[in-house]
């Protein structure tokens, strides 16, 4: 059994010490944490609930409480696994912080229109398969046509979105072309967000 004396310590210290003691256990074991206030007991209870650890607490005196964690074989590993699983959902590993892709037209490069459209479709497809993804893709002016119903790139953009990339289309542009109700992927944005995205981006990619 491990004893943690966290009396006289303010939150988050009791919780941090308890967590460290539990994680240091090899396999199963009991961690007993002493604290001097009810609020600390409540924060320890939250730790137990979130990590699915068995815990009971008791009041020993006016300002003395004891929380007893009974950790089963594999409990710590299960909690770590659950936390890791959650993290992959929230933050895809591949998303590169603050790289911005700007699509300002419905074709890539100047020149032949059908070639330009094929190139752009290919670009977005290839982008969806790269390891290091951008944080956000902005579509404005004729770029707005790429995110609406009937565009060849919708599936690839949805795949990018599912991987955590933000797809944003300029609202003014959708309005101007009368295609607002046809938006098929991502969200609508405004000039403030566009400016902020560009000024804060570490790298801007304009195909």
């Amino acid at each position, binding site marked *: 059994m491990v004893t943690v004396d966290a009396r006289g310590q303010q*939150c988050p*210290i009791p919780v941090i010490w308890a967590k460290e003691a539990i994680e240091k256990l090899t396999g199963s074991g009991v961690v007993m944490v002493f604290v001097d206030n009810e609020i600390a007991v*409540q924060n320890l209870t*939250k730790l137990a609930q979130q990590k699915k650890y068995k815990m009971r607490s008791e009041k020993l005196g006016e300002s003395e409480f004891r929380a007893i964690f009974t950790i089963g074989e594999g409990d710590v590993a299960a909690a770590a696994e659950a936390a890791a699983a959650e993290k992959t959902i929230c933050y895809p590993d591949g998303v590169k912080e603050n790289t911005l892709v700007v699509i300002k037209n419905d074709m890539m490069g100047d020149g032949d229109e059908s070639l330009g459209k094929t190139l752009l479709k290919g670009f977005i497809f290839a982008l969806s398969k790269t390891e290091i993804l951008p944080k956000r893709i902005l579509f404005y002016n004729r770029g707005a046509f790429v995110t609406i119903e009937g565009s060849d790139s919708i599936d690839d953009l949805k795949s990018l979105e599912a991987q955590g990339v933000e797809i944003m289309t300029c609202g003014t542009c959708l309005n101007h072309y009368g295609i607002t109700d046809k938006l098929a992927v991502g969200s609508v944005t405004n000039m403030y967000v566009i400016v902020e995205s560009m000024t804060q981006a570490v790298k801007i990619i304009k195909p």
Partner: protein
Amino acid sequence: MKDEKNIVFCRSGGCSAKLGAGTLRRVLEKIPQGHDDNLLVGFSSSDDAAVYRLTEDLAIVQTLDFFPPMVKDPYTFGQIAAANALSDIYAMGGEVKTALNIVCFPEKMDLTILGEILLGGNNKVCEAGGILTGGHSIADDGVKYGLSVTGIIHPEKVLKNNVCRAGDKLILTKPLGIGIITTADRVDKASKKAMAQAIKSMIMLNKYAAEALRGVAVHACTDVTGFGLLGHLTEMLDTKVAAVLHYENIPYIEEAYAYADDFLITGAGQKNRNFVGDKVHFDNVPFAMEEILFDPQTSGGLLAAVAPEDAETALSAIRELGMGCGIIGEVVAKKQPLIIVEK
């Protein structure tokens, strides 16, 4: 030798050092209340500041706030404490005029530290368009600093905190997570980037958000401080209306989420949960987000209830200030539970 000038951290700094709202209410209930027709906002309504009418078109707004340090740099602490104290004037819709320093300082500590704190405070009072007129200092075990502020306002333009209407959109003008990040910093677990963002947010005067809200129909306004978003929202709803929040639209400093998941959480946050938790229904809200919603803020943003047709205009203007902000939900007709947090 910058390190020597660091202030010693207190047990809990900033607005986390507030007494719990429940405890406070029990004490205040027993204090007999005077009556004066010119007292437009007093302590019966748990508002941000007191408003006293002097003439038909002039009232004074009074407030004070002080607390122990939550950052190591004294000048920064001075700026934060002052921005926090000045904020109540803006939450009422007023204009800052004069301020007095409130100081607790250990006799044996290096006085240049106090000098820097006061300099930081003065810097914010000037930025607010006010003037420091004096102060009071006490020898104490730990450092505490803040301001007593007087502002002016038109008696009919007072923004109370508890008069929002069903249909109003709720706008928050600064990101949440300040308490969690400063707590993580206290145990050396906060990243430099997170702390820099928290400081940038704390030293920013709510003056600019208040100006951005001028011209739109603001029905009620408060600032989010020690009682956390849900605590202050509860005061705003005042059991007369209810609210639905959409957590995906609620701005917070990114790192606060991971820190909350690592249980870098405060006692004050748990006190807030105890006080208002039973009034809130969380519909599939991640644990870290719950913690962020209860997190005590120091010098937090304004929480404004705005007429729905004005909400987008107001948000665009606030977004220009470069802080995380958002339309976080709406006020609805009275029902149980008082606050629903959903996707």
